[in-house]
């Protein structure tokens, strides 16, 4: 009975992973096919949610936090703000075929997949990524930093300057996006109006 419940949980996790990947594929296909831009924005929010679920399934809790907060929250609203400044429908594509392009894409994809056969197994303790500095972090964190989460210790203490640089980058990007979307005016929001007849831009 004990053996049965363990394999049932593993089978259920595998089934959940496969269904999440299938849903991701369906959402991505519909995003490419749809010409209605608001639908694409909502679907990109749903895509970020599915990615966050997949990260939870892979035990990467911190990445799932970031993906849920940034991808499904802020990104959706910012893309919506950008979309409201332009049009509602995308122009239809010209029908045309590019066989060379598709061939190149297939060849590069096949080469990459062939290269992944040489990679070490997932979570292998002797892999180079986990053996040298990673092992040092795992061994030294309880004594030196004493924070239970090793990822937090690496981000905030061992590689603190890196985090400082990232914070500056994200702040600059946020300010730039806000200015582009028109939050810099006093009344808030930019009225998208045309130039009037006598050539002066109206406010």
């Amino acid at each position, binding site marked *: 009975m004990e053996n049965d*419940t363990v394999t*049932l*949980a593993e089978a*259920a*996790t595998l*089934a*959940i992973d496969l*269904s*999440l990947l299938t*849903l991701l594929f*369906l*959402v991505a296909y*519909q995003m490419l096919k*749809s010409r209605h831009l*608001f*639908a694409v924005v*909502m*679907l990109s*929010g*749903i895509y970020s*949610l599915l990615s*966050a*679920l997949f990260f*939870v*399934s892979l*035990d990467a*809790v911190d990445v*799932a*936090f970031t993906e*849920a*907060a940034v991808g*499904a*929250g802020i990104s*959706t*609203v910012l893309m*919506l*703000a950008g979309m*409201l400044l332009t049009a*509602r429908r995308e122009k239809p594509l010209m029908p045309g075929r590019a066989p060379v392009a598709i061939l190149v894409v297939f060849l590069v994809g096949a080469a990459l997949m062939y290269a992944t056969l040489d990679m070490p197994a997932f979570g292998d303790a002797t892999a180079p990524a986990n053996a040298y500095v990673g092992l040092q972090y795992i061994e030294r964190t309880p004594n030196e930093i004493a924070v239970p989460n090793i990822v937090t210790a690496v981000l905030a203490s061992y590689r603190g300057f890196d985090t400082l640089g990232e914070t500056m980058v994200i702040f600059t990007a946020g300010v730039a996006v806000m200015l582009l979307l*028109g*939050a810099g005016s006093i*009344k*808030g*929001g*930019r009225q998208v109006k045309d130039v009037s007849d006598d050539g002066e831009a109206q406010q």
Partner: protein
Amino acid sequence: MIFAVAAAAVIIAMLLALVRAFAGPTLYDRVLAGNSFGTKTVILIGVMGYLTGRPDFLDIAVLYALINFATIIAILKFFRYRTLSVSMDNRDQPVFDEEAR
């Protein structure tokens, strides 16, 4: 065992909500499908935490429940007022998006 059944039911419900998000004729159908999908994601994170024996994933579920609500309200506010900073004196005249149907 029951967690596997609950996870399967939530994934089927997510697939059906996706069908509505693909095919909704008005954009409010799509907003509704997105909101519904977000609530089901919260439930699925909780159930997946129990399924793998680590209920500590509930932190993400708490975070996502908060973000889902704020995002849906922000999207609707954008479609009504076309800006996120609405001053209190012209709040009665909504500048809604006529092409939004």
